[in-house]
């Protein structure tokens, strides 16, 4: 390793980040195991549940997240090329998308809740067995994902300020890259949530 290796070990930092992403992957993996098992047990109820979810909210949010993923990726390339302004712009786009996503989610959830569909609700208990499992999982999975979106947005904001104050720059951009990696993971998880919950009809 080079002399300054301690702080500038890019590979090491990225390796650590990737390992962390694996843990996130497995965290959601646990929920996907449950999903798989219960889908197998209650195919009908899951279809009925999926029917009640709004594809437009889900699809819209998918597009929002994909776009935000693009914008971070572009932002990173921009910083690598030394284009700080574009990078910052892109970061703001990403953070904006994250907020948009959350607003969307908020409306979606409140619509569901006003229909009496929320964990432990009396309405759910009356539905065919399995449907309440579907919605339980839906709330836990999207809730956990929502927390990650929030966290991701927070991290990106923090990195954006670092970029602004030139603490992260063309010659030292791991922090940005790692934040980007985290954000992509959030997107990845959604890529699976979307078809599994909104599109089983």
């Amino acid at each position: 390793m080079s002399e300054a290796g301690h702080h500038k070990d890019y590979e090491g930092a990225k390796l650590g980040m990737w390992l962390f992403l694996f843990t996130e992957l497995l965290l959601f993996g646990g929920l996907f195991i449950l999903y798989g098992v219960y889908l197998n047990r209650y195919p009908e109820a899951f279809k009925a549940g999926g029917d009640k979810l709004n594809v437009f909210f889900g699809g819209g949010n998918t597009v929002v997240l994909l776009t935000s993923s693009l914008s971070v990726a572009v932002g990173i390339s921009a910083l690598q090329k030394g284009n700080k302004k574009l990078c910052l712009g892109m970061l703001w786009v990403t953070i904006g998308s994250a907020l948009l996503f959350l607003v969307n989610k908020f409306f979606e959830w409140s619509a569901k809740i006003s229909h009496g569909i929320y964990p432990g609700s009396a309405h759910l208990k009356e539905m065919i067995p399995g449907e309440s499992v579907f919605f339980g999982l839906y709330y836990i999975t999207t809730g956990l994902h929502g927390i990650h979106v929030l966290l991701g947005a927070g991290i990106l904001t923090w990195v954006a300020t670092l970029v602004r104050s030139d603490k992260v720059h063309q010659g030292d951009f791991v922090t940005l890259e790692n934040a980007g990696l985290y954000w992509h993971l959030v997107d990845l998880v959604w890529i699976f949530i979307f078809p599994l919950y909104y599109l089983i009809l």
Partner: protein
Amino acid sequence: MSEHGQGHIINYSTLVTVWLALLVLTATTVAVSRLDLGALNIWAALGIACCKMSLVVAFFMHMKYENRLFQWFLFIALVTLTIFIGLTFFDVLYR
């Protein structure tokens, strides 16, 4: 080893192309879900999601340009997850 730890810079145009591909796949998955393929529906949805995942990982997350070690790690993590799911199903399916 280059100064910036293989700081391969990806073109904007590549990124945008990938993004477009992702949108197309999203549309496809919605469309496919409208068809009634029986049990195949879920597999189709998963297949498409996996394609999207590979695109994101390879380009947005630069995995294509990282060194072998990273790719191995990713592989290990995915295999682990698959095993967890797979072995669980030996119980659930045959109960």
